C-alpha cells in the first residue's frame, strides 16, 4: 500500500467523487461521513509519504510502469510531500467544518457539492505530486474547473464572479500550456527532472526565455499574484463560506508551490537569479502586492472581501520570500505557505461561522459579537494576530525568516516593506477587533458599568467550532515547532545550492 501511496492520494478522491454521487442517490446523509473518510485516507497517505520521504529520500513513482521520460513520473521530494500534507489536512478540516454551513447554504446540492469538493482536492493533490509538466496542466485545470463550479453556487453575484474567473483562469492555464509547448519544442521532453537536465544548455535560447515567461505568468494568474489578482476578491467573496475557506487556504498556496518548482527545479536556480533579473522583478511586484493588499483591505467593510485582499498581500509575502533566492528567504516562504494555509482557512471559516449565525458579513454589524460568539471571535483574534505577526503565533516565525532572508539578500527596502505591511495589517485587523469588542459609549455613562443589555451566548455549532479550534491550535503551535519543521522538512526542500 505504502509504495503506491503517491498514486493512491490522487486516485482515492477521484474515484470516490464518482462513488459519492451513487451513495448520495441512495442515502443523502452518507455523503458527509464518506467524504470525511476519504479525506482522512488522503491525510493518512500524505503523512505516510512525508514519513517515507523524510526517512528514505525522494520517491520516484512511475505511472503504469513506463519509465520516464516517456511515461508520467510522480516525483515526491520534501517540498511536495510537505505541500501534500498541508493540502490534504486543510481539506479534511474544512470538510469537517462544511457540514452545517452547507446544510444551510446549499441544502439542495449537498451531494454534488461534495463530489466537486473531492474533485478539487484531487486536482490540488495532483498538481503537487506530479513530476510531469503537462500532467500538471491537466491537474491545474481539474482543480480550476472544480473551483469555478464551487464558486458559482455561492450567493449574490457568484455566477458572474465565477465567469470572470473562468475567463481569466483559462488565459492563465493557456499561457502555462504555451510555456510547456515551447519547452517541448526545444527539448522534446515533458518530465521535470529530464527537463531540468536538458535545459541548462539552452538557457540563452529565446524560446526558453519565452517559455519561462509564459509559465510564470500562467502560474501568477492561478495564484492571484498582483496585478493578476483581479478575479480573486469577487470570486472568493461570493463563494459559499466553506469553499472560500478551502480555496483561499489551498489554491493560492499550490500556485506558489508551482512557482517555486518552476523557478528552482524546472530551471536551475541560477537561471532565474543570474541570467534573468526575475527575482528582482518579482520582489518589487511582491512588495507592491503586499502594500496594495493591505491598503485595499483597509477600505473594505465586508469581512470576506477584506480577507480576500489580505490573501493577496499574503501571496505577496510568499513570492517575496521566493524572490530573495536565498536559504532563509525560501525557508520563510515555504513556512509561510504552511502558516498562511492555516491562518486563511481559520479566518474564512470564522467568517463562515459568523455568516451562519447572524447572516451578515459587514464589519459594522459585528458589535457585541464577542458576547454572542465568544469562541469564534477568540479564534478570529488569534488568527488575526498571526497575520499581523505577533509572537508566539506562527505568522511571526515565517516573518522572522522572511526578514532574515531580506537581510541576507541585502534588500533593506524589502525588509522595511515587510515591517510596514505588518503594521498595515495590524490596522486592518484591529479595526475589526475594536469594532467587535469595544462598545463606544458616551463618557457620562461610562462609569455606571454593567448596564449592557443582556446578550445571550449563541455560538456556532460544534461541528464548526472544533475545526476552527484545531486550526487555532495549529496557529499557536506551528510557530513554536517551526524549528522542528524546518530541520526535518523545509531545509531539504530548499535547493542545495542556496
Amino acid at each position: 500500500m505504502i509504495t503506491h501511496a503517491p498514486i493512491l492520494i490522487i486516485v482515492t478522491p477521484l474515484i470516490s467523487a464518482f462513488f459519492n454521487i451513487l451513495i448520495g442517490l441512495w442515502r443523502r446523509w452518507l455523503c458527509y461521513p464518506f467524504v470525511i473518510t476519504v479525506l482522512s485516507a488522503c491525510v493518512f497517505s500524505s503523512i505516510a509519504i512525508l514519513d517515507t520521504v523524510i526517512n528514505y529520500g525522494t520517491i520516484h513513482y512511475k505511472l503504469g510502469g513506463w519509465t520516464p521520460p516517456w511515461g508520467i513520473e510522480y516525483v515526491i521530494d520534501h517540498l511536495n510531500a510537505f505541500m501534500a500534507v498541508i493540502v490534504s489536512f486543510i481539506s479534511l478540516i474544512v470538510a469537517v467544518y462544511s457540514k452545517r454551513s452547507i446544510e444551510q447554504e446549499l441544502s439542495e446540492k449537498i451531494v454534488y457539492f461534495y463530489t466537486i469538493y473531492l474533485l478539487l482536492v484531487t486536482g490540488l493533490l495532483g498538481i503537487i505530486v506530479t513530476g510531469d509538466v503537462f500532467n500538471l496542466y491537466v491537474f491545474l485545470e481539474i482543480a480550476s474547473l472544480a473551483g469555478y463550479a464551487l464558486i458559482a453556487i455561492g450567493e449574490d453575484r457568484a455566477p458572474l464572479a465565477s465567469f470572470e474567473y473562468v475567463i481569466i483562469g483559462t488565459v492563465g492555464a493557456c499561457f502555462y500550456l504555451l510555456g510547456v509547448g515551447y519547452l517541448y519544442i526545444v527539448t522534446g521532453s515533458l518530465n521535470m527532472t529530464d527537463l531540468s537536465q536538458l535545459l541548462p544548455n539552452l538557457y540563452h535560447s529565446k524560446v526558453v526565455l519565452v517559455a519561462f515567461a509564459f509559465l510564470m505568468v500562467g502560474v501568477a494568474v492561478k495564484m492571484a499574484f498582483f496585478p493578476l489578482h483581479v478575479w480573486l476578491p469577487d470570486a472568493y467573496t461570493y463563494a459559499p463560506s466553506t469553499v472560500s475557506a478551502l480555496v483561499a487556504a489551498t489554491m493560492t498556496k499550490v500556485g506558489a508551490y508551482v512557482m517555486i518548482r518552476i523557478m528552482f527545479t524546472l530551471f536551475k536556480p541560477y537561471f532565474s537569479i543570474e541570467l534573468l533579473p526575475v527575482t528582482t522583478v518579482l520582489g518589487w511586484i511582491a512588495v507592491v502586492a503586499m502594500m496594495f493588499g493591505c491598503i485595499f483591505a483597509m477600505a473594505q467593510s465586508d469581512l470576506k472581501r477584506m480577507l480576500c485582499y489580505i490573501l493577496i498581500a499574503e501571496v505577496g509575502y510568499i513570492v517575496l520570500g521566493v524572490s530573495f533566492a536565498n536559504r532563509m528567504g525560501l525557508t520563510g516562504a515555504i513556512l509561510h505557505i504552511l502558516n498562511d494555509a492555516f491562518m486563511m482557512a481559520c479566518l474564512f471559516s470564522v467568517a463562515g461561522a459568523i455568516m451562519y449565525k447572524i447572516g451578515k458579513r459587514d464589519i459594522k454589524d459585528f458589535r457585541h459579537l464577542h458576547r454572542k460568539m465568544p469562541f469564534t471571535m477568540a479564534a478570529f483574534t488569534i488568527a488575526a494576530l498571526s497575520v499581523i505577526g505577533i509572537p508566539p503565533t506562527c505568522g511571526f516565525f515565517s516573518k522572522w525568516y522572511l526578514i532574515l532572508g531580506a537581510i541576507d539578500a541585502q534588500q533593506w527596502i524589502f525588509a522595511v516593506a515587510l515591517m510596514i505591511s505588518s503594521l498595515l495589517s495590524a490596522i486592518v485587523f484591529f479595526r475589526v477587533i475594536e469594532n467587535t469588542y469595544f462598545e463606544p459609549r458616551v463618557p457620562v455613562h461610562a462609569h455606571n458599568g454593567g448596564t449592557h443589555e443582556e446578550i445571550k451566548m449563541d455560538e456556532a455549532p460544534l461541528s464548526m467550532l472544533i475545526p476552527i479550534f484545531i486550526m487555532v491550535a495549529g496557529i499557536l503551535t506551528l510557530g513554536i515547532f517551526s524549528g522542528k519543521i524546518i530541520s526535518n522538512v523545509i531545509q531539504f526542500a530548499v535547493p542545495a545550492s542556496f
Partner: protein
Amino acid sequence: MEVISSIRPLLAVMVSLIAACLIVLTGERARNLRELWTILASVSKFIIVASMIPFIIQGKTLEYTIISLAPGLLLQLRVDAFGLLFGVLASTLWIATSLYSIGYMRGLNEHAQTRYFFCFAIALSATMGIAFAGNLLTLFVFYEVLTIATYPLVAHKETPEAIKAGRKYLAYTLTAGVVILLASAITYRLTGTLDFKPGGFLAGHASADMLRFLFVALIIGFGVKAAIMPIHEWLPTAMIAPTPVSALLHAVAVVKAGVFGVLRVILYVFGPGLLHDSGLWLILAYFVSFTIIGAAMLALAQDNLKRRLAFSTINNLAIIILGAALLSPSAIKGGMLHMANHGFMKITLFFVAGAIYVKTHKENVSELDGLGRQMPLTMGSFAIGAMGVTGIPPLCGFISKWYLCLGSLEAHEIVFLFVFLTSAFLDAAFFFPIVYRAFFKNPKEDVNPHFNEASMFMVIPLMTTAVASLVLGIFPNALVHFYEIVTLAVQNILGG
C-alpha cells in the same frame, strides 16, 4: 557561573497564564471564585519567583529551554540577577495590584471585569517572560504579548477617548515592535546568536555604522515603552485607563519592561565596553537628560493628578536609563535599584490617585484641598511616596539617587550630577504642593472634613507599598535582597 536547568522560570510564567484561563472559564457567574484565581496566581507566582532568590545569590543561573528554533536561536528562559530583580519587583507588586484592583473595580462597579482580570494575568505572564528571557528573541516574543495584552486594558473604558488612547498605544508599541524585530534579525545574522551576555556580545561583529544603526533601532524600539521623549506621547494619553492599569503600566509591567529592555540592550547586548569605545553612551545620556528635565517641567503644568504622575514616571524612567548609560558601577547600581524602588513608590502614588477617584470622583490637583482630613491614611501614603520619588532620606528613593549621583562622579561627568539634582528639585516642586493642599489648606465645601476612607481593599495595598518603600530605604536588603541582587548583577556585567 554555574547554570542549573530548572523548570521554575517556566512555572513563574505559566502560573498566571493558567490563571487567565481559569478566570475566563469562571467568568462573571462566580465573581469571588474569579478573584480568588487572581489572588492565588499572584501569591504563587511570588512564591515561585522568591524561591529562585537563594540560587541567584549563590551566583548560579537558572535556565529552561522551551524549544530550539535554529542553531543559536532558542526560546529560552534564563534567570540571572538582573532578570530576577525585575521578576521579584513585578511579582511582589502584582499581589498589591490584584487586591487593589478588586477593590477598585468593585468600588466603581466597572464593566467587563472578566476581560480586565484576564488581560491583567496575561500581562503579568508576559512581564515574567520579559524578565526571565534568555535572549533577544524570547524577550521580543513576550514583549509583543505584553503589548497585545495591555491594549484592552488601556482601552478599557470604551469611551471614544479610551479607544483613541488604545489605538495610539498600539500604533506606538507595534511600530516599536517591528523596529526591534528588524534590529534583532540583523543582530542575529551578524553574530549568529541572540543570547544575553553580561558585558555584551556584539563587540567585534559589526561595523561602526551598523552598530550605530542597531543601537538607535533597539533604543527606539524599547524606548517607546520606556517613554523616552519624544516618543512618550502614548503614556499620558493612556492615563484614561482605570487606575490599577495605570499603576500596572507605570510601576510594574509596561514601562518597566521598556526600561528593562533598554538596560538589557545597553548592558547585555552592546556592553559597557563597546558603548564606551564607540561614544554612543554619551549621545544616549544627553538624550535622556533632556527627557528628565523636559518631563519634570511638563509635570509642573499638569492639573490632572494622573497626568502629573505620568510625567513624573517619564522623568524617573529616564533617570534609570541615564544611570545605565553612564556605565560606571555605581550609576548602573543606582539605575537598577531605582527601577525597583521607583516601582514601589510610584505604585503607591497611583493607588492613592485611584483611591481618591473611587471615593470622591476627583481627578485634578486643584480639587484636593483639605483632603488629608477626609483620607489621612491615603494622603499620608501619598506624602511618603512623593518624598521617596524626590529622594529624601530615609526613603528608598534616596538610596538609588545617591548611587546615581556617585555614578555620575565616577564617570567624570558633572553635567549629569546636575541633571539628577535639578530633577530632584523639580520633583519636589510638583509633588509637594499636592501634599500641602491636602493637609494644610482648608477644605472646600464638597470635601468631607471627617474621616471617610476608601475601601480597605484599596487602602491596605497602598499603605503596604508605602511602608515597603520606607523599609527598603532603611534596609535596602530587606525581604527580597534587592541590594544584593543588584550588586551581583553589576559585578557580572563589569566582570568584577
